[in-house]
């Protein structure tokens, strides 16, 4: 597998502000994804981060609320904009396309976000 890191690991933010979460992987990967895990819930895919082009968003998620960047094959950011308490969740990035295991998604440790 790969070493995947996320920053910050947790944060407490005020309503109306924005937070950018970083995801770094130690080897080049084909695909990177962003998920949300609301308290006590399963994982929901927010979007696929595409290198060199706009992210592909799932139903219910929009670019204005969750802008995503992917400048290269090892790094991506997710911004949670104009936050409300309903955005309190764990945000996870995942990667797929490692040379040693192309079929499997591996996950970062997550960013626990609390919005007051």
């Amino acid at each position: 597998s790969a070493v995947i890191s996320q920053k910050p690991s947790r944060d407490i933010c005020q309503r109306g502000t924005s937070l950018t979460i970083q995801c770094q992987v130690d080897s080049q990967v084909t695909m990177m994804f962003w998920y949300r895990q609301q308290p006590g819930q399963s994982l929901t895919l927010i979007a696929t981060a595409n290198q060199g082009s706009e992210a592909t968003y799932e139903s219910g998620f929009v670019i204005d609320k969750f802008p995503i960047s992917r400048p290269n094959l090892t790094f991506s950011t997710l911004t949670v904009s104009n936050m409300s308490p309903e955005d309190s969740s764990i945000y996870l990035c995942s990667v797929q396309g490692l040379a040693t295991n192309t079929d499997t998604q591996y996950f970062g440790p997550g960013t626990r976000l609390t919005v007051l």
Partner: protein
Amino acid sequence: AQSVAQPEDQVNVAEGNPLTVKCTYSVSGNPYLFWYVQYPNRGLQFLLKYITGDNLVKGSYGFEAEFNKSQTSFHLKKPSALVSDSALYFCAVRDMEGAGNMLTFGGGTRLMVKP
């Protein structure tokens, strides 16, 4: 559309006993199936997968899972549970023929292993 069901919110088992965490799936094509484990305040860790071949798949930490196409199931098993196995377990599916690389997760099953 693809979907996953984990019918049990929680499974309780005594240490040393065998454990089973159930998963059923629905896809239009052939499935890729995965199990992940989440410990408190941690991300998801990959346990095992079924892509093709032998229906019994062995993974990390002594876990295994059996793919049953007729029952559309992929139950996770371990012969002898450890207290340290207590965690949240997620089953996930991807349709080989559709939906790109989208992974759909079940609701999760909390495994409690008691000493």
